[in-house]
């Protein structure tokens, strides 16, 4: 076994001490891993509508609640060919970290009402922005009860999510046939 560098004889070797660098790097890695979990908790994997000549604008960072309406679970590769032919039934609604089924609409209404009333302006009008993110293959009959629940919570306006121009699964396929 070679002797430790501390007890080596002769002139000292010149070198960088990278130990603090490694310490800090590991701290950063852990920090980003934790943060990325928080970010992915908000959105659900789905294929949102892809529009002809979309007039959508970019998603700005605003005070908003994202309402995700998830389809039945799917395999991304399996759904690539014809994503619209997937089941139109809703699996769950996810707001923040909470999940709601079709039978939990009343609970969803009361919680959304609570949030919307806490963000009213001077005239008592709700200032809450609701972003509705629903899968393109869902039936309107699956989405409409959720929209109705949002209305019942006193919110009259939502932002519908779709792909930006030149984005979306079909357009990517066309680019790489």
């Amino acid at each position, binding site marked *: 076994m070679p002797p430790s560098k501390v007890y080596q004889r002769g002139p000292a070797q010149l070198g960088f001490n990278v130990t603090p660098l490694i310490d800090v790097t590991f701290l950063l890695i852990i920090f980003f891993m934790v943060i990325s979990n928080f970010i992915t908790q908000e959105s659900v994997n789905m294929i949102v509508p892809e529009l*002809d000549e979309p007039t959508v604008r970019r998603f700005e960072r605003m005070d908003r609640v994202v309402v995700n309406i998830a389809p039945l679970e799917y395999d991304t590769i399996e759904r690539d060919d014809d994503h619209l032919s997937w089941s139109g039934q809703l699996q769950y609604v996810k707001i923040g970290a909470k999940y709601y089924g079709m039978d939990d609409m009343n609970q969803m209404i009361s919680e959304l009402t609570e949030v919307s009333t806490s963000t009213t302006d001077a005239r008592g009008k709700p200032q809450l922005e609701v972003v509705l993110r629903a899968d393109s*293959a869902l039936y309107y009959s699956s989405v409409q009860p959720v929209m*109705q629940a949002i209305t019942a*919570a006193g919110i009259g306006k939502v932002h519908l999510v779709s792909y930006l121009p030149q984005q979306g699964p079909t357009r990517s396929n066309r680019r790489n046939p």
Partner: protein
Amino acid sequence: MDDANKTANHRPRRKRSGNGQPRMALNLTAMIDVTFLLVIYFVVTASFSPGEGILTAKLPQGTGTAVLPKLPTKPLSIIVSDMGPTGYRLSIEDFVTENPPRDFRELYELLVRLQYDKAQGRTFGTHKPDDPVIIKPSGQVRWQHVVNAFNAAVRARYENIAFAQAQ
């Protein structure tokens, strides 16, 4: 035989420091380790999903407490019915035409024709841009077609668009 001798007498190219002085070198191994870890981490966590944007819409009326402006008696109603498992059929309520719109581009063109907006040079239609437009989808129509119909109305510069309950 000659080759074997060459190998036996091979001397490394790198010269040893003759005077016994230690060589100065950076130990980069740890940094490379960490860099690779970081690269792998970012490759794994990066999402390659396409960008998403938003369209602002009004919600269906009927129940609830949301206060929306009262609609005039004759709104422009776009009917989106389902056809087959993923198809759709478009029509405008109380508007009889031999050539109903076959896709959303044609729906947009029809909505432009039906609009009266002097500033835009649209003088043949009867519906002003702030007149109400109601999207009336059937229950089995896919959400993609509903949003596409909504998008066509926004593109045609209608400002007061709402959704009806499932037909």
